[in-house]
């Protein structure tokens, strides 16, 4: 139940969790499942970030409309991640380029500036492949979807 207090790891340990998204959104259930686990993980007060690489970058493309394929359009939910204090969405530059995409093709996703509640900061950070590898190597746990 939502009213139950957030579960805590022993001694309040905060782990670095990265959800690695590598699949396009609507052909398989991976992207939606990942998003649901991400939302649940937010209740555990861990350091959560998301990585989008390979076809995973398609999850953040703007203008997705699933009406005619009769499935839930969960794309707008990425824009709610800031409310869940998930403020780091790393997108791999090479993966975008390989797919003919540019940063401008992605949905604007923002979160509240912790220093100023009236200001918003972008959540998406486009990083190169080497930097993505470094970010992965900094995590305690990598969850692949």
């Amino acid at each position, binding site marked *: *139940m*939502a*009213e139950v207090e*957030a579960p805590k790891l022993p001694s309040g340990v905060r782990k670095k969790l990265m959800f690695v998204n590598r699949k396009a959104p609507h052909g398989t259930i991976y992207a939606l499942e990942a998003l*649901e686990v991400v*939302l*649940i993980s*937010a*209740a555990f007060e861990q350091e959560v970030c998301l990585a989008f690489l390979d076809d995973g970058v398609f999850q953040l493309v703007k203008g997705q409309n699933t009406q005619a394929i009769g499935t*839930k*359009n*969960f*794309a*707008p*939910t990425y*824009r*709610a991640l800031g*409310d*869940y204090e998930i403020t780091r969405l790393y997108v791999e530059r090479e993966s975008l380029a390989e797919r003919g995409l540019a940063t401008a093709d992605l949905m604007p996703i923002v979160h509240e500036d912790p220093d100023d*509640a009236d200001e918003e900061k972008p959540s998406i950070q486009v990083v190169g492949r080497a930097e993505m590898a470094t970010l992965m190597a900094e995590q305690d746990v990598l969850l692949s979807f």
Partner: protein
Amino acid sequence: MTAYVINGSSFEHDEEGYLKNLADWNKDLAEIIAKDEKIDLTAEHWEVVNFLREYYDEYQVAPAIRVLVKAMKKAFGAEKGDQKYLYQLFPYGPAKQACKIAGLPKPTGCV
């Protein structure tokens, strides 16, 4: 019971009372769901229910309680963006009960 009935029309719900089809929802149905939850809907309840529907419409997700409190605070101020205030309106859990009345799916992470 697996469906709410209004004037001979029935609207399916799951075993916990959440509407199966988001599009079925209307204010009369909300009143019926609220009655099952033993809640008399006041203007304050409606404010939360409508807020949840707008949140869902925007983000396609029912917010977790923590998120609801924060978003209510931003929209209506500290008095209403308050866990205690929301529990007074929806004693069995604001996210859970208010979402049900608003015709939304059970919030993700609400196990």
